[in-house]
């Protein structure tokens, strides 16, 4: 049965994630020795507990948030190309962060709870505004091309505004630079806590509305005829999508394609209802970003390649491959 298959894949993806976190702690100077040394050497202990573990766990959490956001976006907008990046919400979130930084100061490296929460909140407002703007420009979600064009326009304009804000504040500019490329280097335990909370909330919210997403696959009129509370569900799903995107973007910057690729990867593994797609997309996104992060750190070691650069390249190749393997994009 399909639900057993979902649980099986969930377990497999969780194991991959767990193995990835372990692997992530060993990439860098000292390798696996940080584990053996952590009991005696305070430096090793610090490397392991304060840097590598939160970073690896953070990469997994951020990827899970983006994967979930992608699955929600694709289900809600009934469009296989919808993703937090292409809908402009990621750029909106980054504009929120840069405005927050220029207004209240601080840095993307801040590890105190309050500024982190403030940045995440600002990113959330920015993400919601961006999605609403994209939907207004696209006049709904029916036309794939309009939706994508509107998303690109909103993304570019909000991204440019974020850069403009940063330009006026040199210290923000410096902080934003790493941020624009997307990196897990700033992630500490505070960020992990925030992302875990956002993941739990948005996953629970989206999961509770999974049946609405299933019904929406039969079209809006049919979903309405089945008694689904479409207006409320749409509002809550946009909130879940924006919360997940914002929490990831506020901690790691702009990381492309994980949100797009994770649900596609899940659908290529198995066919199931949205309850399964949402859960597995989160787990898949976590595994994908974590593995990409490990790769990014190992490729040019001891240099640190921003993981956003790597996912953009890998994602681009993936999209090209998809373009070749499907004759056209289904609306």
């Amino acid at each position, binding site marked *: 049965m399909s639900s057993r298959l979902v649980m099986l894949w969930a377990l497999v993806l969780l194991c991959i994630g767990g193995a990835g976190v372990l692997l992530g702690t060993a990439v860098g100077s000292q390798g696996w020795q940080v584990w053996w040394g952590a009991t005696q050497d305070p430096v090793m202990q610090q490397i392991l507990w304060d840097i590598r573990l939160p970073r690896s766990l953070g990469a997994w959490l951020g990827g899970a948030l983006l994967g979930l956001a992608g699955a929600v976006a694709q289900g809600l907008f*009934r469009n296989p190309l919808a993703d937090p990046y292409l809908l402009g919400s990621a750029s909106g979130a980054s504009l929120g962060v840069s405005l927050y930084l220029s207004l209240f100061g601080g840095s993307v490296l801040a590890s105190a709870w309050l500024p982190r929460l403030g940045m995440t909140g600002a990113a959330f407002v920015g993400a919601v505004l961006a999605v609403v703007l994209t939907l207004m420009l696209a006049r709904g979600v029916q036309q794939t091309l309009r939706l994508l064009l509107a998303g690109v326009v909103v993304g570019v304009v909000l991204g440019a505004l974020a850069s403009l804000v940063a330009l006026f504040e040199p210290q923000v500019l410096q902080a934003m630079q790493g941020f624009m490329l997307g990196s897990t280097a700033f992630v500490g335990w505070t960020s992990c806590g925030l992302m875990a909370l956002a993941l739990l909330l948005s996953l629970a919210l989206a999961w509770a509305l999974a*049946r609405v997403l299933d*019904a929406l*696959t039969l*079209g809006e*009129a049919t979903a309405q005829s089945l008694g689904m509370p479409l207006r409320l569900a749409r509002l809550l799903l946009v909130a879940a999508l924006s919360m997940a995107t914002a929490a990831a973007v506020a901690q790691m910057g702009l990381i492309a394609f994980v949100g797009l690729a994770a649900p596609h990867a899940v659908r290529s593994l198995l066919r199931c209802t949205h309850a399964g797609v949402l859960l597995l997309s989160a787990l898949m996104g976590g595994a994908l970003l974590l593995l990409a992060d490990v790769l990014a750190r190992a490729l040019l070691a001891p240099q640190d390649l921003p993981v956003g650069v790597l996912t953009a390249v890998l994602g681009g190749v993936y999209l090209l491959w998809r373009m070749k393997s499907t004759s056209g994009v289904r609306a």
Partner: protein
Amino acid sequence: MSALHGRGLTVSLGGREVLHGIDLDVPAGRWTCVVGPNGAGKSTLLKALAGLLPFAGQVQWLGARLDTLGRRERARQLSWLGQGEAASLDLRVLDVVMLGRLPHQDWLAAPSPVDHAMVKAALEATQAWDWRERSLGELSGGERQRVLLARAMAGNAPIMLMDEPLANLDPPHQVDWLEQVQCLKAQGTTVVSVLHEIGMALHADDVVVMNQGRVVHHGPCTDQATRQAIETVFDRRIRIHALEGQWVVLPRTA
């Protein structure tokens, strides 16, 4: 009692009035077909009666005003089969048909044995049970249509509205569909369908003939006036003949 009752139904789409104050009573337990040329407002009328788009005027289902019925109550009373459903083809057939049971399930509750039984019965009625584990994307257009019909039937609603249900169905399955409608009728279900296939539409009990956002005729198929109204609304480009106790539609060439 009429199953569907509309008074002064007016619908505007994109600033243009497409239905002009329609009055209509659809009798319960009968099969009514809506026919008319392209752009006559057939689908819009069906959607308005189903409460699926904003309209001016009044609609009653089985004697109850539509605005007094809650969302779930509506979903249990009326089942809708639209045109070109299924935007995503990823769901399994079984999951798609189970969606028809949503109005009977509590939020987040697992499907009950009754739900499973109804889904199985609906899939068997449309001869689609064998594909239950496949995804919609693996089926042909006609096969998909049969699954979607099963989805609409699984809800077991007393009123069923179908917008061009014969699209993509080959002749044998069109005949199957006809039998399914007769079967639904025998169970007391009120069926209203928009059909382009006039020959099939004339198997219905009653026909509503529409043109330019108005109902120009509403009467039983056995009535000569109904058949004349159909010929007229199609500019007399078709002729309806009797053959072996059925009606056949032939083109009238110049």
